[in-house]
């Protein structure tokens, strides 16, 4: 039975008809020898032709000017009988050399880039050119890019090994803008810098807003743009003349009905959370005006620890569905 298999197996040329051939490591010295018995130890049956003889490696038949991207078209593990390089890798024994490539696990462990030779990359780029558009010719310098597109958005996508593509860190969005590219006068710029606090860097004149409160990246992007809009408009808003100057005051407003117009307006804005009913409501500063807070002139900012402490001290009655802290 073994003899019947032998010629059929020998006639199987590597890489000809099979989709994948094994990488068979044959040390060069064994080619000169006659086929030796198997290592299973059948020395007594040496007159029988060996059942499993390895073919010579493919490296001996390779032309020097072959098309390498067709040998390694995709990322694949290292195959010593296919790579015609005498590489050695491994921690050598004392007075020894690193191990040869045949049966070398170290070469298997490391990721190889044999499929990304310059020729292969050029071929990929040629194939991808049909799907690309030209860079706009008018944007030929960094200053022009900054002038026309002053707002920079940074997002990150994460790839990890495993069946899941979800990564909670991918929802963070960072918005950067130079204040010099915004239309701000002296008072507006100072007020904006005071409002944002640590998010402004004086040396580079860059305002950085990092949002990751919402579960989706798109929502965080919308929230960041909303914050920028509100900050800009609020920094232009001025206190009417004659109004009392107060550093920090507390205005408490209790909403009897959770469905009143004020509460509904607040909860329809992004990033809102109502304390009592579980919907969203931010604590926001507003300017002292008669009649309570004006929705169009409010800025959304979370309470600072000091303000939260004042709120707990006063212990307002009723259902605290909203509270407001004013500044300036």
């Amino acid at each position, binding site marked *: 039975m073994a003899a019947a298999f032998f010629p059929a197996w020998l006639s199987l040329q590597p890489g000809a008809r099979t989709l994948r051939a094994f990488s068979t*490591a044959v040390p060069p010295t064994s080619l000169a020898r006659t086929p030796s018995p198997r290592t299973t130890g059948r020395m007594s049956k040496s007159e029988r032709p060996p*059942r499993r003889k390895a073919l010579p490696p493919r490296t001996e038949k390779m032309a020097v000017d072959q098309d390498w991207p067709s040998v390694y078209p995709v990322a694949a593990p290292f195959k010593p009988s296919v790579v015609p390089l005498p590489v050695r890798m491994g921690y050598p024994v004392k007075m020894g050399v690193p191990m040869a490539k045949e*049966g070398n696990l*170290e070469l298997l462990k490391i990721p190889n880039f044999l499929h990304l030779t310059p020729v292969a990359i050029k071929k990929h780029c040629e194939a991808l050119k049909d799907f690309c558009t030209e860079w706009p010719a008018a944007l030929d310098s960094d200053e022009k890019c900054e002038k026309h597109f002053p707002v920079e958005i940074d997002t990150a996508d994460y790839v990890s090994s495993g069946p899941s593509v979800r990564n909670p860190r991918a929802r963070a969005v960072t918005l950067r803008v130079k204040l010099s590219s915004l239309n701000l006068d002296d008072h507006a710029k100072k007020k904006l810098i005071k409002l944002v606090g640590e998010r402004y860097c004086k040396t580079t004149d860059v305002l950085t807003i990092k949002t990751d409160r919402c579960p989706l990246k798109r929502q965080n992007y919308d929230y960041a743009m909303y914050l920028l809009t509100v900050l800009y408009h609020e920094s232009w808003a001025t206190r009417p003349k004659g109004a009392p100057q107060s550093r920090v005051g507390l205005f408490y407003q209790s909403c009897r009905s959770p469905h009143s117009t004020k509460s509904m307006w607040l909860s329809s804005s992004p990033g809102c959370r109502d304390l009592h009913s579980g919907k969203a409501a931010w604590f926001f500063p507003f300017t002292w005006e008669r009649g309570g807070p004006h929705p169009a002139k409010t800025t959304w900012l979370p309470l600072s620890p000091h303000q939260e402490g004042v709120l707990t001290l006063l212990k307002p009655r009723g259902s605290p569905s909203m509270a407001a802290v004013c500044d300036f």
Partner: protein
Amino acid sequence: MCFPGATGCPVPGAPCTSPLCAPRIGAARVRVGKGEKPVTYDEPHHIAHRKSCLSLRTGNLDGQDHAAERMVEDVFLRKFMLGTFPGCLADHLVLKRRANQVEICALVLRQLPAHKFYFLVGYSETLLSHFCKCPMRVHLQTVPSKVVYKHI
């Protein structure tokens, strides 16, 4: 040398905690013999010091998720391959993950005829892909005998 039960130890029979004799680490080390024991390159000692890890995945990196699930899958894959290729594996498996797919690189001895190897490869790939719900590829490299690194 202070060892348990020696005279002069503070508590005879108790484990020796003197700083003079460090505890012997026995995990993942091949016991040194008389010089006739052949060892392959990938005995687990010196992993990450002189040798790369046998299993490449992003869970090994700092702060990455799902490390435990991938590790459990790796243990299962190693056991499965050990049983599917009985007596044929020449060394430890190398498992590489690239995004969703897993590549199992194995060194095998030439114990079986080629058509049996092909069947086992297809069988492993199909079954493991269904078990782990991700594409699996098995890459075999045949060697005539176990590649000996040194004799200890």
